[in-house]
């Protein structure tokens, strides 16, 4: 197999089993040595009835990004009639994504309630496969749930993959054997029936194949995993020694809460679902004060509620890792849609000045490594460390070699904690004025030493003071941590290509893969562009960023927000003019968005390009919060 293909599975949320199909297909293909990238999971915050879709890029080599919104194979799992759409039965998937189906692509749909007129697609060379999956499951197999397996079997036939059902059988046995052999057989039978129907359609149409074919790729014993961004974060945190987590349910931070609830107890840690955002972060601060590495995660509205405690972590010098899985704002915004609009908030949230560090991983792998770095930095600098992800990063599922997780481990390492002997010798001042800005810590219970931790301004011992010289010295001490950080731990941007003399695409967060692929395509068209991606955003490493960008032909900042938050920050810090490509309709950037933007800016002299796209909407879901 040489080509890469993009499969989109769509249906009614919580009814059609979109998630199950994608999970089964994704896992099996990963086991077969193929790379799967699901970067754009789309669901709604209505629990039932909304349109859900999940595009998967499948490739024999690791795909650079999710590419465009063009789809090769569309699977529409809806089956019944929708009175809201008089001319079409419930075909939301076909209507929404049909226009993005590649000419000559494949449509597989559930035809249980009759066949659908798709003349426009057929006219574009799309091969159409009606499959009465629900009917087969219900009437022949007497179990509606196995309709997902009918569909999966059909898909595998289209791809000429797993014809002997070996992969499927193994997965089903792992899942269901403890519930009985019959269940495994029933599912296999469902898959077989799906395959049969496809055979019939192929034969009736006189098609030899559909133009897509997947073959297992030998991995030479390399183990591969299908992991989500939230899971990578959670695993990284546990690896880094995080033993206390507190959350409050909010999309898209909830999967991390679920992960920690499941795993922390098995590593002698504890996870708390707070009664609200404030209880969560306060409990985490308490645990951190007690000496345990602690983390909280939330999204926009929840982060807003935690802000007062950020100041306490800063002034009281209590280490804490805070993950903000951004979603579209403002206010409750679009809970299940992606955006990168909290950068300004994270570098500024809280009253007064206090030291903080803001990191933004740009890939699933960096979610794993950077959260470890975050714990190290929080401990070293005794301040809040913010890790900014977004819905795309939280939800991304991706095939990653298992070795990656084993090789990139940063052992927990604690500096600056005084021992009892040191305390006896030197005494203890919690907020001792030091050159680095970092004062020694002790944990409560240490014989021979006590601390007074306070968010109110204090002297070196932690006692309240408003004496001007003491205040100024304490403020200076705290803020000196940022100097130390910039010298010792800040990282410059990741640079791909030659920024000098060329247009540069600048980004942060989950958009990196798209920028890299856009660069490839532009270069293939003869336009040399570089990509400069920032991960360490605050304190802003001007000394590392400015030299990289100073001689660029054009600085084009690509980000998913309305104002261009990084662009503004760059201008402010580096005193360099920026142009912008901005998208804020809730969808991820596609490579084509970036290319259109670059053309618009370089050819037509636009200073900014705002991406919009036509998305036909048939059934508008009424979503919650």
């Amino acid at each position: 197999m040489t080509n890469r293909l993009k499969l989109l599975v769509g249906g009614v949320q919580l009814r059609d089993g979109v998630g199950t199909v994608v999970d089964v297909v994704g896992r099996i293909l990963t086991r077969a040595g193929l790379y799967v990238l699901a970067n754009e999971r789309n669901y709604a915050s209505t629990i039932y009835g909304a349109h859900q879709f999940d595009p998967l890029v499948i490739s024999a080599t690791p795909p650079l990004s999710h590419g465009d919104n063009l789809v090769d194979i569309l699977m529409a799992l809806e089956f019944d009639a929708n009175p809201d759409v008089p001319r079409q039965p419930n075909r939301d998937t076909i209507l929404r994504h049909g226009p993005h189906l590649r000419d000559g692509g494949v449509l597989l749909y559930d035809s249980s309630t009759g066949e659908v007129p798709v003349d426009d697609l057929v006219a574009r060379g799309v091969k159409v496969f009606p499959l009465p999956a629900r009917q087969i499951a219900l009437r022949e197999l007497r179990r509606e749930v196995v309709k997902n397996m009918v569909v999966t079997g059909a898909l595998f036939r289209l791809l000429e993959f797993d014809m002997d059902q070996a992969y499927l059988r193994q997965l089903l046995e792992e899942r269901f054997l403890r519930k009985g052999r019959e269940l495994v057989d029933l599912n296999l039978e469902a898959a077989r029936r799906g395959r049969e129907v496809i055979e019939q359609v192929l034969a009736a149409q006189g098609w030899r194949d559909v133009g897509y074919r997947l073959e297992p790729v030998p991995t030479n014993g390399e183990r591969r995993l299908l992991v989500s961004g939230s899971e990578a974060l959670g695993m990284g945190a546990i690896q880094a020694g995080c033993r206390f987590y507190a959350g409050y349910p909010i999309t898209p931070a909830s999967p991390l809460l679920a992960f920690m609830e499941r795993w922390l107890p098995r590593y002698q840690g504890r996870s708390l679902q707070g009664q609200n955002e404030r209880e969560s972060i306060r409990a985490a601060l308490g645990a951190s004060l007690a000496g345990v590495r602690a983390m909280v995660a939330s999204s926009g509205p929840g982060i807003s509620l935690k802000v007062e405690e950020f100041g306490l972590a800063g002034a009281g010098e209590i280490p804490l890792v805070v993950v903000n899985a951004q979603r579209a704002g403002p206010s409750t915004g679009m809970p299940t849609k992606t955006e990168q609009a909290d950068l300004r908030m994270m570098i500024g949230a809280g009253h007064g000045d206090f030291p903080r560090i803001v990191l933004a991983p740009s890939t699933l792998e960096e979610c794993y490594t950077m959260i470890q770095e975050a714990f190290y930095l929080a401990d070293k600098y005794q301040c809040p460390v913010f890790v900014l992800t977004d819905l795309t990063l939280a939800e991304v599922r991706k095939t990653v070699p298992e070795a990656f997780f084993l090789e990139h481990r940063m052992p927990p390492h604690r500096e600056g904690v005084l021992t009892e002997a040191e305390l006896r010798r030197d005494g203890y001042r919690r907020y001792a004025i030091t050159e680095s800005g970092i004062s020694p810590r002790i944990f409560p219970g240490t014989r021979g030493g006590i601390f007074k931790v306070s968010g109110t301004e204090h002297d070196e011992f932690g006692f309240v003071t408003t004496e001007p010289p003491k205040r100024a010295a304490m403020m200076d001490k705290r803020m000196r941590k940022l100097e130390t950080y910039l010298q010792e731990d800040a990282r410059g941007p990741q640079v791909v290509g030659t920024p000098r003399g060329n247009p540069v695409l600048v980004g942060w967060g989950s958009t990196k893969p798209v920028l890299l692929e856009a660069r490839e395509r532009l270069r293939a068209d003869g336009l040399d562009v570089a990509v400069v991606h920032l991960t360490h955003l605050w304190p802003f490493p001007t000394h590392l960023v400015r030299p990289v960008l100073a001689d660029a032909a054009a600085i084009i900042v690509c980000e998913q927000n309305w104002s261009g938050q990084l662009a503004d920050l760059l201008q402010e810090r580096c005193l360099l003019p920026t142009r912008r490509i901005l998208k804020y309709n809730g969808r991820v950037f596609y490579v084509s968005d970036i290319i259109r933007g670059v053309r618009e800016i370089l050819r037509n002299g636009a200073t900014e390009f705002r991406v919009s796209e036509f998305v036909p909407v048939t059934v508008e879901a009424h979503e919650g919060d």
Partner: protein
Amino acid sequence: MSTKPAARTPISKVWEENAVPRHRIQWCPGCGDYAVLNAVKMALTRLELMPHEVLLIGGIGCSGQIRNYLNGNALHGTHGGPLAYAVGVTMANPELRVIALAGDGDTFAIGVENFVHACRRDPNVALIVMDNGVYGLTTGQRSPTGGLGQPQEEFSEESPPAFNPLRLALAAGATFVAQSFSGDPRHSADVYVEAIEHPGFAFVNDFSPCVTYNKFNTYDWFKQHVELVPPDHDPADLQAAFRLLDDFEARGRLPLGVIYRRPRRKKPQQRLPMWDHELADVDLEPMLRTFR
């Protein structure tokens, strides 16, 4: 700051070391919080606790300053936060004695969310509220417990009837509910000892008059209205606790003493790992396996 070896210092004095000296205490002369401070010292001395074994969590207000007037590890966080920090501290290290010392505004207004849920969660924390009916530090605005004992035939949204923290605590599932009064610090100390020893969340509402801003609930006023819980009251009986509150209320009296006390069965927990050596060699295998 280091505590000298206990052998050379009488334990009662230990609690005055490393603390703001008495002449620099910022409370108004006559403030009820002085008596709370003395009673806390008495209780800690009687329990033979050493400062390093204790974590004091102060609220935001005049009352919260108490954390600096006592030896011992202390946290001074945000307004309304003490009990939530305490939950995290005790979850992380159940061996610490955690005492939260806060005002009525801090606990029953901005912090009521944390108060209600601490009652349910039952962390091993003693909470002493210095209840003066006003926001002292912000110069005397009315707090939720303001208007205690004042006749109120009509009310408005702006000034609702006084809030009864004991009833809320009982209703929310607290396992230790008591009341004390700054005019009688010896009795307070007895109650605190019980509260600190209670295995779970112990709430003591201490009437601690604000001599500057609350001209109604004065020491004299309290002296005329408080009354000890009768010796035959069974604190293990929740219904009896509610009846006692009804009875005192009907008579226009305020009960002092332990109103309810019944330990709950709690899963034992260990101190969470925190040192490098405790965290070394994280075995990722069980997690990795689930992604294959």
